[in-house]
């Protein structure tokens, strides 16, 4: 058996950025996953959630929890990422002035995700959207 959850994310809705990660956190605690692993998962998911809010128009998060791992797929409609390699570089950011004023846009999100996940994959089409897949083992 696996647990499946989906969450909607709206672009620009900073007030609710983090809702999905905090719900997933509660599930993982009930499943008694190692607190340190939960922390990594939640940090990665939070960064990914904020990226949709900050950079895309709307998105959907699909969570699959199995007995030894969690798979998180974040699919958004948005501008896409033209050069993924460059986007991954620490400190690189195209965040708008507004987004920076809210305390985001340091260009640390994707590298933080990389550090906190066991597998990470990005595919993107410019002008259409981005799919980020993350897998963590418990």
């Amino acid at each position, binding site marked *: *058996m*696996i*647990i499946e959850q989906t969450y909607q994310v709206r672009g620009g809705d900073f007030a609710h950025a*983090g809702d999905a*990660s*905090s719900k997933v*956190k509660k*599930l993982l*605690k*009930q*499943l*008694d996953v190692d*607190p*340190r692993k*939960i*922390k990594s998962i*939640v*940090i990665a998911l*939070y960064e990914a959630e904020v990226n949709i809010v900050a950079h895309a128009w709307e998105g959907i998060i699909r969570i699959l*929890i*199995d*007995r*030894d791992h969690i798979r998180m797929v974040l699919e958004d409609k948005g501008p896409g990422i033209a050069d993924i390699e460059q986007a991954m570089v620490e400190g690189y950011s195209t965040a708008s002035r507004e987004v920076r004023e809210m305390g985001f846009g340091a260009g640390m999100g994707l590298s933080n995700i990389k550090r906190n996940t066991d597998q990470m994959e990005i595919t993107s089409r410019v002008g259409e959207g981005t799919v980020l897949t993350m897998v963590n083992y*418990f």
Partner: protein
Amino acid sequence: MRVDPAKCIGCTHCMQVCPTEAIRVSNGLAVITGERCVDCGNCMRACPVDAFYIMQDDLSLMQKFKYRVALFPSVMIGQFPEHITDDQIYGALLELGFTHLMEVEQPIHWLVEAYRKYHAENPDIRPLISSFCPAIVRLIQIRYPTLIDHIVMVKAPHDLAAHYALERLKGEGAQEGETGLFYITPCSAKIAAVKRPLGEKESIVDGILNMDEMYNRVMQVISSRPGVGSSGYREYLTREGILWPLPRGEARLFKHKSMAIDGIHNVVKMLERLETENHPELEFLELRSCDQGCAGGILLSGNRFLTVERLERRARTFPHSHEVNPDGPAKADVLEKLVTDPIEPARVFQLDPDRSRAIEKMALVEKILCRLPAIDCAACGAPNCHALAEDIVMGKAKMTDCLFLQAEWQHEGRVTPARGFRNMEKIWGEGRFKADCKKKGARNEGY
């Protein structure tokens, strides 16, 4: 924290304010799950009929000891009406049979030094979280295990004062077993922590006295005694010490790089955030379960804002802590004893120790939630629909406990009305639904 079955009327007030969903109603009585309880006292505050109580020791326990020390926090003084002086309160406590009186926040500078040392020795852990409030430590232990590492492993003022008093009395010639330490506290969580200390073999104090009871006793004898010069009893009391149990009492040590949050529901919001976001710019977080810190302690008699007010004024007349820093051989001994034992995460919310079974149970919770009405009315005896779904999966409740679902099943002929009524009485007590104009509760509870 206990429920008096003679007083409990089986309403839902306590259940709704419990921050860990530790309370259920069964057979018309509130039932507390001990392993989930953090002893914050919210249930006791919310109870319209005073059905919650806290165990305490008998004052007569004192007679066993030659030296009888009353340990009490500064809020003990702060709760009295302004016209009653410190000297009168000290006088009344002596009248009650104590030989030594010690406000616990002394010598607070030792604790300040212990905090600074811990802060310097753990530069990678930010923010540090205060260990002062046992309700919060317990909350972190059961609900926020990822944050356990942030807790400052230094004990609280009452431990400081207890060890210090023992050392001093030993110095004055007290023999082993002659000194009895009695801790007067306004705090249900401190009482629980002293009664069943986490990881320690035995508590250092010999007795716990509830502050509301001591308040009454002091009030009763206060006029029969003129008061004593209290300054001899509190030579190491300082401004910082007096303010310690109040909001920002500890946070002020870390100036603007710190934050103080009081009220357990506010604390929960902060801890939730802290689990997802890093806040390395914050050096120190002071988290207190009660509104206005210990001035809002559950067993405190005075108004919490007036208590803060009185203590702030009182504090201004005392020297700063670094000016009163008694050195000597006792210091090292006491400091050594102020290191907290390691805190282990407690798994009280996990659905099953076996991951596959836990996942099955979680899926079942989701399925049950499809059937429940999402009204969160608590008429099932659980605080909300989700809690009931979990109880059902854990085998502690059944589907028909939801009165709406049961009504639907009666409508469909799957449950007989007689059966349905019995189910309701199982939760709310036999005879509960008979008309009774004298019943307690329900009147002006909303105000």
